[in-house]
């Protein structure tokens, strides 16, 4: 079974530029998550999708961050414009959606904002 795929693995941009990250979850997984992991901290949930609908985006900075999962499969997270404090690893995870299923994480995208 293929795992969660993410690209790119690394990205360096200057502040005020825009950036996009892509995630392809495990086949058949209905639930998809985006997390932000700042150096020295645990992952923080940004947004949770169930199929192509948003379940929770309460911690997503909506003035600059956006995410979509148009066909209920892969997803894109965008930052526009980026700030220095957005430097972090962005993790994508997926789960089947059943009541006790585990979340499976991708390798992450390391973003550096200069």
């Amino acid at each position, binding site marked *: 079974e293929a795992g969660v795929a993410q690209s790119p693995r690394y990205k360096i941009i200057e502040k005020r530029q825009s950036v996009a990250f892509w995630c392809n979850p495990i086949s058949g997984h209905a639930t998809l*998550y985006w997390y932000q992991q700042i150096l020295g901290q645990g992952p923080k949930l940004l947004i949770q999708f169930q199929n192509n609908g948003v379940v929770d985006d309460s911690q997503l900075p909506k003035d600059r961050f956006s995410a979509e999962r148009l066909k209920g499969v892969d997803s894109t997270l965008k930052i526009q414009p980026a700030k220095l404090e957005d430097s972090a690893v962005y993790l994508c995870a997926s789960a089947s959606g059943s009541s006790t299923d585990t979340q499976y994480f991708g*390798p992450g995208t390391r973003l550096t904002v200069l």
Partner: protein
Amino acid sequence: AQSVTQLDSQVPVFEEAPVELRCNYSSSVSVYLFWYVQYPNQGLQLLLKYLSGSTLVKGINGFEAEFNKSQTSFHLRKPSVHISDTAEYFCAVSPIANFNKFYFGSGTKLNVKP
């Protein structure tokens, strides 16, 4: 609200020695508990989880954890560590009523020395 505290940011230990990584949580509702491991430049991998039943949970790679409801703790243990166990370990909780919403601790870096 839920919060997870991992008191030790770094734990150095010699190979073949036992180790305990501490995790305490605070929650107004019943939760499921998890330990994840993150190797360098990789995503998080599930070590073990407590959903119900026996409070002693065995996971992969020889790790185990014990749920203590009265002390709201879920400490991770291994009787004899290997060099390959060097990684960062994250404790997480998820409300039973809202499973799949995870709250992570800040992580503990385990450094196994030869």
